[in-house]
């Protein structure tokens, strides 16, 4: 019961944060002077293309870019009627991409869930690799196991992702027959879901997951190791030992539970780091995720597209932190009971 109330409270704060983020995103995108259309109009004027100017002017009024900034904001969010009445984020209208001359929703449509898919796979990879390695290197600290895991981890941290991507593509293709680039076999593109398409996507996921996840896993492993080492020197570990617990059971029941908190709390930070970190990788690997679209949109001041992508990343982050907060409450009675240690 208490948990449900807390979850509700947490959800409300998330919505509030999202709203604040939307203001920030909008302001930041509009910070550079001019906008896509005024740039374009200036360019068209300079080259004397009158009909283009007319169209651009039409779009300017159509998307209310001629109005004051605060009005633009409320129209974009859908809290104020624009030229087409209420039609903004709240109503599910994400705006128009001037660069691609198509609605934003059309451009990002597929990319959205592919982004979620790639990043979820990477997060899973991070946890599956970091958890056992971190625990083992803490339990066997300063032995060859620890040193090897640490070495591989630092290698993962230090290698540029795109370089790793190229190497893996080359060898993956040469020895394992893994496909190069893209999210799926081109024949499935634009096709409805089918077993063949799912399989194709999964095979294409292997290398990107590895590439995007490696550095995150290495960092996470080091953090978990450090936390575990801290916990291992605490008196309650000694109590458990004096009880006659076997080392493996002791490790998993007591210090690991304690070291798990930062591990869980990291979920929220992991998501945005991966989305932004995977932009370059997506470009190199030719993944149709949201990353390359964001890059293009920011370069050309394609404001609705950029704003939408940023909002989407913010939403992912907020959902991630909410999940980790709720998990922490479930995992740690001290947080649940709001008590302080001491």
């Amino acid at each position, binding site marked *: 019961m208490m948990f449900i109330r*807390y979850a509700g409270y947490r959800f409300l704060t998330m919505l509030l944060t999202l709203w604040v983020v939307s203001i920030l995103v909008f302001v930041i995108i509009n910070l550079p002077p001019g906008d896509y259309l005024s740039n374009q109009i200036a360019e068209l004027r300079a080259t004397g293309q009158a009909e283009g100017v007319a169209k651009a002017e039409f779009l300017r009024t159509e998307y209310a870019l001629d109005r004051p900034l605060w009005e633009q904001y409320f129209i974009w969010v859908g809290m104020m009627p624009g030229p087409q009445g209420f039609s903004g984020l709240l109503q599910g209208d994400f705006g128009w991409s001037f660069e691609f001359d198509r609605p934003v929703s059309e451009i990002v449509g597929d990319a959205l869930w592919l982004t979620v898919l790639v990043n979820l796979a990477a997060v899973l990879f991070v946890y599956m690799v970091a958890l056992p390695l971190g625990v083992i290197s803490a339990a066997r600290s300063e032995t060859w196991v620890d040193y090897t895991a640490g070495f591989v981890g630092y290698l993962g941290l230090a290698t540029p992702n795109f370089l790793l991507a190229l190497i893996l593509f080359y060898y993956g293709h040469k020895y394992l027959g893994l496909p190069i680039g893209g999210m799926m076999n081109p024949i499935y593109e634009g096709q409805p879901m089918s077993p063949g398409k799912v399989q194709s996507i999964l095979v294409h996921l292997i290398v990107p997951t590895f590439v995007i996840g490696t550095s995150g896993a290495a960092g996470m492993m080091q953090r978990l190791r450090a936390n575990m080492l801290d916990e291992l020197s605490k008196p309650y570990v000694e109590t458990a030992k*004096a009880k006659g617990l076997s080392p493996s059971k002791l490790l998993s*029941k007591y210090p690991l539970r304690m070291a798990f908190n930062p591990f869980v709390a990291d979920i929220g930070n992991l998501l945005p780091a991966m989305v932004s970190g995977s932009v370059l990788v997506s470009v190199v690997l030719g993944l149709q995720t949201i990353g390359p679209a964001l890059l293009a949109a920011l370069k050309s001041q394609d404001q609705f597209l950029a704003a939408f992508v940023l909002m989407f990343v913010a939403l992912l982050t907020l959902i991630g932190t909410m999940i980790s907060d709720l998990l922490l409450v479930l995992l*740690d*009675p001290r947080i649940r009971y709001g008590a302080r240690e001491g």
Partner: protein
Amino acid sequence: MAPLLDVQGLTIGFGDAPAVVTGINFSVEPGETLALVGESGSGKTLTCRSVLRILPGTAQLRAGQIKFGTQSAIDLLSLDERAMRAIRGDRISMIFQEPMRSLSPLHRIGNQVAEVLHLHRGLGTAAAKKLVLETFERVGFADAERAYRAYPFEMSGGMRQRAMIAMAMVAKPDLLIADEPTTALDVTTQAQVLGLIKDLQKETGMAVVLVTHDLGVVANMAEKVVVMNKGRVMESGPATAVLGNPGHGYTQKLFAAAPMIPEVAEPADALADDDLILNLKNVNKTYTVRAGGWRAAKKVHACIDVNLQLQRGTTLAVVGESGSGKTTCARIALGAELPDNGSEVLFRETSSSDPVAVNAMTRAQRIAFQRKAQMVFQDPYSSLSPRMRVQDALTEPMEIHNLGNRSERREKAAEMLRWVGLNPDTLKRYPHAFSGGQRQRLSIARALTLDPSLLVCDEPTSALDVSVQEQILTLLEDIRDRMGLSYLFISHDLAVVSRIADEVAVMRQGVVVEQAAPDTLFYNPRHPYTKALIAAQPEPDVNRPIDLNLVSKGAGAPDSWPEMFRFKGTQAPALIELDPGHKVRCHA
């Protein structure tokens, strides 16, 4: 019959360094209590841990035998790991010093205790729970079912230590090792825990190895005593012999250093109150505790109507158990915390200056006040920055207050070191090069650099060994008289207070219940709470044991007190001056 535990020639060391525990011999008969006594660094903890083989990873057992069992003795040191695990928690169990940190905060108490039965008896959840509940009732949990479901942080220190004892006792071990089990607890709670261990011992016939530095605890618990110093046994034998007639010089030194409540004192005259350096008038402090994001806030009264007067050049001690509000008083006196409205704290720098209200100072007044009122903290290990040289730590206060130039400050720092009995050559060293007692001297020296007139000492000796405590108390008395200082001395230890204070205020749950000169207070304690505190203080004399079960009840609830002191809820009676200089909270 062979002894239950027989330790022979035990030698432990770290790395290539010389052994830190050398050639320890002792034995424990079934049902007997042996006390391992020593100051920090004596090796008593390493010794007791080696019995269970739970030494830190870098420690090596270099030599010796630990035989366990009366019939067919096994050598614990040569046992394989699996067999050793079967003994831990089953035949030999252990309780530790810090009950909070020794229990996992994430698991319910019941789960942690029942685990022992799962491990060693192979019992299922229901059967284990039944036994655990029985044990919980035995160790004095009023609501065993609730304790079973509770998390450690929901319990007080004494309750947690009971849970630890339940965990150690649930498998009915032959030997219990208790490593400073009551050091972190208040005296009445200490009496409860010790009494409980003694009762359980009588019932089950287990033997106990009690590790402690407190000779009072030894006198009340042990049949046999082993005194250790620097990794060697100094003296061992029956408690009556060792405590009654200590043979070794080191044991005698320990006894001389142990502070004691004076046995028969004459009531003292009332102190004059014509020249108060510090005057707390009707001080109240209420904290609002937020219980967590979505629960209602709660009000806690840390100080209720506290009136304390500190006469210039004397020591006023505030004693009480944890949570009594004594530290809050000190913080308010220093202006570190603002009291509730209507409270007044007056400070008079010299007899001729005007009093300043500490709770309503201007910025300039505050800076001047901070020069004149300094603090000495409890933990000398964490109150000095490990990254600052002694010289920097001592000159920093003068820099902050812009006193003197660089060489004058240096000169002053060196002088202060001489005052506290340290060599000025040590100015260039870092705090880690000093022992606990030396660090406390440093922190006193630091407080003195600004020539204060008032020193607030918050449990300045409770982190120290008895012999060091003795030195620090002597030092404090010495500089008080030489520099004309006044002390507000916060402590939980009546024996320490009886030695240094000119006046003692006993606090209970935010209220001063009795106030008098120490001689008067110990000669003629009137309030049931004061009496209970004095009775619970164990003395290092085997011929005068305290009745642990009686004193462990403490003073009880206010509505069970004699008519004169009784009250309900928070409606405590007023503090009344029964004799000159002897104030008691009672109905006149």
